């Protein structure tokens, strides 16, 4: 076959391929017909063959590049991950996430230590010596904390119940999920950013807790925090773990190539932070709508305790339904 005959014979199909590609890109996935998809993949394969033919016979750079572009576009269209469905997402959050977290429990424990130790130290230090709290927290923060937990109805912003609560819930999403995402992202610098944020958050929150308890609002504070704390504090530690895991991929390779190690760790880390994000969403709903309810403290302690058991039990025990048979 010479070049002229080749061009005459094949150019019709190239044009058809281009047209079909544009057409499929413009229509919804659900409306693709199996015929046109079959045509596309058949034409794609023959264009791949055309490209290698043109290359081996050196039939011109221009032609080669044109076919190269066609192959690139076809490849990008045909080889894609199967579309995710809602059930897969739910399954991941409920089952896959705890399993992954248990696989990486070392990072969770490290994150817990980095957050928990400064938290406890700052809290105890503030309780013993209130000056520590004054050193760690700015004046306005202390004032607003004292004001906030002075009465049992916390987070009440005036207005009617529903709007005030949804405002607070959305604020918690904005603030807490932002903190969690930052914990993840800063892990990209060998985990140093994450470690710094964990220590810093631990110190501040510990000092705040110590301060509020120290000025005598302990009961209001603890009954408020206990319910959503189950999801919120755990999720923050998980977010820290994801940042550490991300950074660890830069340092440790474990029998993989450098790039592969980086990618494997990053893939697990992003799944952890996604799970943590969902947990923080749940926490924001609890914090916005349940925690500030004007009900006796013992009910809040009971519900909060139950939530802690649920969270811990879920993270420790959940496994995907399919894996039980193994």
């Amino acid at each position, binding site marked *: 076959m010479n070049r002229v005959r080749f061009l005459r014979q094949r150019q019709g199909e190239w044009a058809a391929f281009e047209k079909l590609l544009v057409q499929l890109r413009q229509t919804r996935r659900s409306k693709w017909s199996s015929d046109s998809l079959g045509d596309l993949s058949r034409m794609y394969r023959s264009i791949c063959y055309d*490209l290698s033919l043109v290359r081996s016979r050196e039939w011109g750079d221009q032609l080669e590049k*044109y076919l190269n572009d066609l192959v690139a576009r076809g490849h990008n269209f045909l080889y894609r*991950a199967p579309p995710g469905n809602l059930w897969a997402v739910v399954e991941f959050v409920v089952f896959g996430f705890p399993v992954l977290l248990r696989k990486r429990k070392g990072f969770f424990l490290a994150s817990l230590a980095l957050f928990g130790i400064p938290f406890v130290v700052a809290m105890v230090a503030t309780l013993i010596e209130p000056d520590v709290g004054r050193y760690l927290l700015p004046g306005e923060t202390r004032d607003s904390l004292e004001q906030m937990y002075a009465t049992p109805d916390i987070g009440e912003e005036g*207005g009617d119940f529903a709007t005030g609560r949804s405002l607070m819930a959305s604020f918690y999403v904005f603030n807490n999920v932002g903190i969690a995402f930052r914990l993840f992202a800063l892990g990209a610098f060998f985990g140093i950013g994450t470690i710094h944020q964990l220590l810093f958050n631990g110190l501040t929150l510990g000092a705040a807790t110590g301060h509020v308890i120290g000025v005598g609002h302990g009961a209001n504070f603890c009954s408020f925090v206990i319910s959503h704390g189950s999801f919120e504090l755990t999720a923050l530690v998980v977010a820290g773990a994801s940042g550490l895991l991300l950074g660890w991929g830069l340092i440790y390779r474990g029998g993989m190539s*450098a790039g592969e*190690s980086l*990618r494997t760790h990053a893939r697990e880390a992003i799944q952890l932070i996604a799970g943590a994000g969902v947990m923080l969403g749940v926490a924001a709903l609890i914090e916005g709508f349940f925690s500030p309810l004007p009900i006796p403290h013992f009910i809040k302690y009971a519900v909060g305790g139950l939530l802690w058991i649920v969270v811990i039990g879920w993270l420790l025990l959940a496994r995907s339904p399919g894996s039980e048979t193994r």
Partner: protein
Amino acid sequence: MKSTPVLTALTTAPRPPRQVDTRWTVETPEGVDFQFELAGPGKRGLARVIDVLLIITVIAAVALAAGILGMAGLGVDGLSLAVILITLFVLFWLYPALFEWLTGGRTPGKMVLNLRVVRTNGTPIGFLEAFGRSLLLAADVLPGPGTVALLSMTCTERLQRLGDVFFDTMVIDEGTGVAARQTIIDRRLPPLARACCSRSFQLPTRTLTAIERLFERSRPISPMRREELALRLANPIAHVLGYRPELDDHALLLPREPVGERPPMAFPSTLFVLRAYVTFSPDIEFGNPVNKPDVNGERSRPGDVPVELAEEIVELDANELKEGS
């Protein structure tokens, strides 16, 4: 000593031959290689600027709507503040993720500039990649706009920012497609007549390809140098064809009116080679002839060559001819 990935990458990693252009080769499962054009920091930065402007516009619009509701006496109550906060959160953290996930790798800024995020194996990205890149944007913009991203892009072969490095993606430029790579050969040149060729009247494809390469638009060759190279082709071609210039009406003629008074004599080999190409290469168009200006500012000028050549010829002084070789 136990080596870490970073150390290895910095010191001992066996490097493939250093890539000198911005193309990246991917192999398909069909066993065929093809190339992507990578997008550089300029275009990607511009795309980001467009995205940020869009984000600011949306925030301003939402805030304005809330303000108007407030003035209308409905009050900016908790609910509309909640909407603003959620909007802010989504725009800050999830804007690139949602767009890149749902549109196959393109934010509005990338759509404007014809960029697309793909995996390094050329396949479209999924949700996890889009989400991860989106979150790592927070690290890439430290300590100022795009600083870390720029550093990372200069250190990686595929011009990847941190988000790309961790999630194995790259940004490709789909705007510099066939158009920028087309040759600059005008088919309106007078073909060689059968009468002025005393031997065979055909040329091997490889010769035609060689001519094609000489006139690729992306190849910056000066007219002088091109003439030198064309001379090397012109002599054997003339020999094979048995070309007899005295029988050729069009010998050394340009297809358009010569500009000015001077006869366009400077590049005979270039012209001859081009005419040989036009004569023996099949006159078949493929692909979409793209006449719009390219995004990177390069003018698209299919078919304008003779004018351009003519101008160059006319502009050429005798001095330049002496110095140029």
